[in-house]
């Protein structure tokens, strides 16, 4: 059975790119527009991995990572955060919150798949 990955981003184009790339590689994708939406969807849809942006309205990436790690079902799933060069302190925060790894934006589809394979197998 194909694995399900959730992409959380307030930018539709980033969601589109992540989703298109992952679907092309045979994954099932669930999209969420911000941290709050993501947590709501997690409550009903089991996923194997989460890829989240950091800057988002309502609930940002750090908040979301903390929120996911607090859920017993998702305590150990891989969470990848999308960061930019200038966000090193945010990256540290994300790691402290329990992120598995990160991808620096802008990234190419191959890089994304490489990281997914690395943490999801």
């Amino acid at each position: 059975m194909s694995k399900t990955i959730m992409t959380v981003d307030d930018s539709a184009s980033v969601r589109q790119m992540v989703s298109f790339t992952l679907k092309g590689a045979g994954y099932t994708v669930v999209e969420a527009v911000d941290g709050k939406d993501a947590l709501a969807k997690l409550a009903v849809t089991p996923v194997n991995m989460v890829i989240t942006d950091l800057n988002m309205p309502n609930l940002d990436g750090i908040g979301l990572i903390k929120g996911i790690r607090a859920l017993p079902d998702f305590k150990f799933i891989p969470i990848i955060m999308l960061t930019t060069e200038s966000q090193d302190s945010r990256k540290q925060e994300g790691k402290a919150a329990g992120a598995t790894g990160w991808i620096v934006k802008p990234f190419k589809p191959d890089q994304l798949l490489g990281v997914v394979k690395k943490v999801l197998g």
Partner: protein
Amino acid sequence: MSDDGLEKGREIFIEEAQELLAELETSLLELEENPADTELVGRVFRAMHTIKGSGAMFGFDDISTFTHEVETAFDMVRNGELAVTTNLINLTLMARDQIRAMMEAFRGGPQVDEERSTEIINGFKLIMAGVGAEKGHTDESVTKSEITTESHTTPQAEIISGPASIVTYRVRFRPAPELFTTGTNPILLLNEIRQIGKATIVAQTGSIPALEDFDPETCLTYWDIVITTEQGVNAIKDVFIFVEDLCEVKIEVIDEGGIFDEEQRHLKLGEILLSRGDVSLDDLKGILGKQKKVGEILVEAGITDEAHIASALAEQKHLKDVKEQRQKTDTASIRVPSDKLDKLVDLVGELVTVQARLSQTVTDFSDGVLLAISEEVERLTWELRDSTMSIRMLPIGSTFSKFKRLLRDLSADLGKEVNLTTDGAETELDKTVIEKLNDPLVHIIRNSVDHGIEQPDVRVAAGKSRYGTVHLTAGHSGANVLIQIQDDGKGLDKNVLYAKAVEKGIIAPDAELSEKEIFSLIFAPGFSTAQKLTSVSGRGVGMDVVKRNIEALRGTVDIKSKLGVGTTITLKLPLTLAIIDGLLVKVADDFFVIPLSLVHECVELTKGDIAKMHGRHISNVRGAIVPYIVVREHFLINTQRPLVEQIVVTEVDDRRVGFVVDYVIGEHQTVIKTLGRVYKDVEGISGATILGDGTVALILDIPKLITVVEKIESNSYEKALAV
């Protein structure tokens, strides 16, 4: 992601950015009223952040670079380092309009005013300089972003690199107990390590307590890894990049392909444990006096446990395997001077000739036993011939990689940005062919870069990427090798070529030429389309020399080009120069060989056919008019023409020309002998071969014969006109 997906992504990006820009305008106006509203500042920052990040991802590098400054400024506002002023709001509004204009330009709107962009960016830099000067913040981040964009657009330039050395590393990967809480699965990391090279992995489970005390949510195992790879230490570090804060990853080099001395390769168990820090030197010395195996003694003495011994033994075995493997590859190839090989090829050639003679003689005897022997000899001879030829075969890759440097220097000289990509570097070709191919290839690549690829700004204006690409491909096609040099430059302009040829007197002003004929004008001696000579291609060597060199290799050159899209030059070369497949023909008592690769078909020519054409040297081959050359006449063989002759129709450069001979004998494997010094300048003969009965057959140089005959005929035509 496919182009289609990218295109769709771009559309969505632009739509989304338009929305963001509209929202941005409102936010900025509100912010002007309430400069202290952090929620509004956050909104502006996020909008810029998204435009920049997604912009770069979908290839809008100009938008991304431009937006970077605005984002940096608002990041500073967010951090309380910069105040919201009317000036900042004005500038940001201007920037917003500029981004919108950039997007419109992409959708076919008017060109963006670059100067305005620079003005706006300078405005932001000025504002930030007040705060950023002492921190060196702005300038640094600008360069950084430029560097990252650059590295994204030139990935292909790094494709070809020399062979890396094979190194064996010892890695101790010791995760912190809380590793699992970050969602990391160490098994996946170990699997990734296995993909880098030959790895021996030993798990150390000594710290895992009894089941009742065991907490499955903590990671108490650690791993000893010995890995042999040519990918370098960074490939190993990359595997652990996400967990470097949470793990101890110790990487040491323990063997470097053949550089370390002999003793290093035979590390004893005790030495391995010692260098891993699992036992101390004193412990080892104290124990070595006894006569048991070191490992057993160390365990018995309670200095270390069996797991560590097992791990060290695994490393010992891994190193032994690596060493054995290396010795195998060392003996797998030997270097031989090429003249010895040439001698071998010569001898095989003689053998092939003798074998042909044997077969011929045996047929006359019609003795079953002899026939069987002869056939066996024939089979062995062909096998011997094939394997001898294969010894001379080398992959073309080394030639390809030389061009990478050439291209780099050329691009720098001409102020162009060009990538070289290659395909089929493993394609094998005869050593001599590769050597002789070098100069023509250099010239063609030079031409592609100099005349083909446009300057970066011209390319961008034409809607292409800044970086031009020259793509080299090699591949087999039957007994030939096809080498393609493809560029995505401006292509050949038929009208310019035509005008130039008329100007140079190469063709008549009213000549009617097909596209193909116009393209092949660049092979005419003295032809150059460059407006002015450059240091790169104006060296007095033209494409005519390239064509001559390729033809000397019995190859052909073909050009395809599309204006604005690029040019593809295809070289078709024989695999080897030593042997060709030929068609053996006879004129009176003389034998000739026509290279089979050029032969299209054979048809009859009767006295009646000749009469029909009133003695002109043309023939009607199934409705198509084919001119022919009578070999007998050309070589002045003064004997009677038979009643029925044969026309061997050849095809050169897509043109058909027939050669009239008495008989077509059949296919003949031809070992080429070069002609002696006295005869080497004879036009129309490229070499000779010896037939089974010892007779010499001359090999016809078909393309040359055609040009020679054409020249003679046009001369006599002009003379006739003059009279």
